[in-house]
């Protein structure tokens, strides 16, 4: 029971199977290699907070790992649509018949499926979230939502004020959520951690507090637009513009925060992400968005002129046709912008992340492929009445996981033994009170 001094024994012992006379063991080791060579990596699309996505791995698993110059290790994803469909549908049913009380258990099972099927260096990730803690968090959130709903719908003007109140709790909730998720995730028997404080989160997300101000101004006095249209439009447009300008700043800070306050055991993650790179990404996204809006406007104007100039045509038909085309363009616009920003920001976050002195990451998600994936998923989901949601989730997870690799900075033996468990709180202790679980 007393732990002996440790040494990396994995691969050596594979090479000496006779030592333990265990044929299964040899088979086992082979399987490990297969998993690695067959697949590339991925992770649940947004289910994983950046912290953990950024956080990963090592390994002494492949034979090449013994070599002095370590090879990059690809992530692989072994989840499949059919088994996941079973989990999804059964837990969905259980959640429905229990009026949502089962939903934290459903969440944990689904998450365990995605984490458990994400591999790197011959080891998978694990999720340990306690459903009871998540249930507590959800009940609180549900109560807050009900209050907010009634106030927002019945007392115009009060909504933004209440939103502001809820937002003051946001930094704390975000910090708790990140800490909960990180502390309940592990790899190679070592838990991840997040030690960002509510104050640090606030310092990152404060520009988003402009949002309720914008809402306030546009909702509080619905008559403002009539009474002084120009002033109203200028103010509102100005505020949206400011919001647009600070948004990439907030994104950069939040991403940097999640990475640089995360750790794997006692080893910290570092981020060298530059804010201006995030601005560059959103700059192009805005150009794409404007191009899309222009295309929609062109369709609208064309529809108008067709209706005016072609006498025999029914105006309603043209109206519907115009609306359908504009709607289609809008969907394409959303998909393209979303795929672009997500792939580029995701790649940037990983490429600038580092597990202090031990490993670096590389993410190669292509905006084009992600957009195609989103579009296919959208149609599949709509035409299957939602039944292909599990299939879509698995596909996105596989693509994203398998676009990821980790580059150890030293021989794997030394890397993996350098990572040691944190002395502080474990996930169980942290997660016991409330399990806020936001997808960030």
């Amino acid at each position, binding site marked *: 029971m007393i732990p002996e001094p440790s040494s990396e024994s994995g691969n050596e012992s594979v090479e000496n199977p006779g030592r333990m006379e265990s044929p299964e*063991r040899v088979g086992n080791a082979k399987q490990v290699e297969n998993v690695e060579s067959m697949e590339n990596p991925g992770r649940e699309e947004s289910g994983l907070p950046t912290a953990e996505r950024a956080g990963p791995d090592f390994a002494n698993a492949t034979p090449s790992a013994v070599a002095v110059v370590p090879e990059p290790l690809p992530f692989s994803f072994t989840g*499949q649509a059919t088994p996941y469909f079973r989990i999804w549908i*059964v837990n969905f049913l259980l959640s429905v018949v229990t009026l949502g009380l089962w939903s934290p258990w459903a969440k944990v099972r689904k998450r365990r499926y995605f984490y458990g099927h994400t591999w790197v260096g011959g080891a998978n990730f694990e999720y340990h979230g306690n459903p009871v803690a998540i249930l507590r968090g959800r009940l609180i959130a549900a109560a807050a939502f009900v209050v907010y709903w009634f106030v927002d719908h019945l007392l115009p003007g009060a909504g933004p004020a209440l939103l502001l109140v809820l937002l003051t709790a946001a930094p704390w909730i975000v910090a708790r959520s990140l800490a909960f998720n990180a502390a309940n995730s592990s790899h190679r028997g070592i838990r991840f951690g997040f030690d960002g404080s509510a104050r640090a989160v606030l310092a990152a997300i404060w520009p988003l507090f402009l949002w309720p101000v914008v809402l306030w101004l546009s909702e509080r006095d619905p008559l403002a637009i009539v009474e002084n249209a120009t002033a109203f439009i200028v103010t509102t447009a100005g505020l949206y513009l400011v919001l647009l300008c600070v948004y990439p700043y907030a994104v950069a800070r939040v991403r940097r925060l999640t990475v640089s306050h995360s750790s794997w055991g006692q080893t910290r993650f570092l981020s060298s992400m530059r804010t201006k790179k995030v601005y560059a990404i959103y700059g192009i996204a805005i150009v794409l968005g404007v191009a899309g809006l222009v295309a929609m406007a062109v369709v609208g104007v064309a529809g108008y002129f067709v209706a005016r100039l072609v006498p025999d045509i029914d105006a309603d038909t043209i109206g519907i046709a115009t609306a359908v085309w504009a709607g289609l363009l809008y969907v394409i616009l959303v998909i393209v912008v979303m795929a672009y920003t997500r792939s580029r920001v995701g790649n940037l976050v990983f490429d600038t992340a580092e597990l202090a002195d031990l490993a670096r990451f590389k993410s190669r998600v292509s905006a084009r492929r992600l957009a195609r994936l989103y579009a296919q998923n959208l149609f599949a989901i709509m035409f299957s009445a939602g039944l292909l949601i599990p299939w879509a989730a698995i596909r996105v997870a596989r693509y994203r996981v398998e676009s990821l690799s980790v580059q150890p900075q030293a021989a794997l033996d030394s890397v993996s033994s350098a990572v040691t468990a944190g002395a502080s709180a474990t996930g169980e202790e942290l997660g016991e009170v409330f399990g806020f679980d936001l997808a960030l």
Partner: protein
Amino acid sequence: MNYPESGLQDFSATWFDGVSAQRRDAAVAIGRDSVQVRAVDRVSDYRVDTLRLSTPVAGVPLRIALPDGSTLIVRDQDEKVAALLGQPRRSVAYRLEQNLPFVFVALILLGAIMFFAYRDGVPWLAAKVATRVPHAAEAQLGETILKALDHFAFEKSTLPEEKSAEVTDAFDRLVAAADAPALELHLELRHAKSFVGANALAIPGGTVVVTDQLIDEVSGVDKVAAVLAHEIGHQVRRHALVQLLQGSAIALIFGAVAGDISGVGSIAAAAPGLVLRLNYSRNAEDEADRFAYDLLQKTGASPALLGDALEDLVRSRCKATPADAGRDNHDDEDNANAEERSRGCTGKPAKPGTRIGYLSTHPAIESRIANARAAANR
């Protein structure tokens, strides 16, 4: 390092010590009430009853937590290993997931639950909640809406004094018959700007607005009263609030279903949600019509008057320029007008009961007219 005595069963596992991230391949031998975990550089013994096995998830290796903080990952034959350790993997959720017939049952059950929740559950719950919200709660919302409409859509009523008095009297008689003391019903007359035209609205909080144009186009106060009865129906049944609640419930359900897939999934979920919501507003129109039939009968009038009023509106709309469209609407969306207009004016009315189904905000006007007359003959 000799093997434990013969007769013990063993299996292979990956061993993480919980102290560092290094991996060990281990052989685990199971004894009567202890297990021995052996790696090249260390050997540990544990009592079997101190082992904690993870609940199974399809395809995810069995994870055994050992009391010293280390873990064993078992990738092969984990079921057998769990049984050998005397802790067979009994998770209800896992068993149901692995049971193919149950998966099909779940599929069918979910379909049925969703259908009934949509058709009966959500409307029932929304009506229950709505009737428990005090009317006063809606008053502020209603005031804001009316103020905005006064700026955008309405001007002061230009109706002759005696005409407006007639309409107001008719409204008061209906209110008396409706017997809804908690609801402060009152009538507002407005002259509509041209893009609104003939219209009547139920505004949250108890205000009914009717436009001069509607009173002109519908010949006779009796028929105007029928339209007002329909609007009172919206008020008494709390349709504005009910529809807000229904819309939010649908959005929540779709959000929960699509929760798995971020981003684009939510668009896929939003579109059908919107369509389903439109069907609710059609149901609200039907319900308000039925309420109107009863209310008219209580005041000694015929439900057929509502049909006549709608017919008057269709007729005058056919004569009017298309821009003068507008009919009866209990809130500020009236997408179906254009479609109804063209149908009412083509000379070949749609077959009875023809609806463009879930896409129509309002029931086909012909069927509403027919229903009103059928109600009169009952």
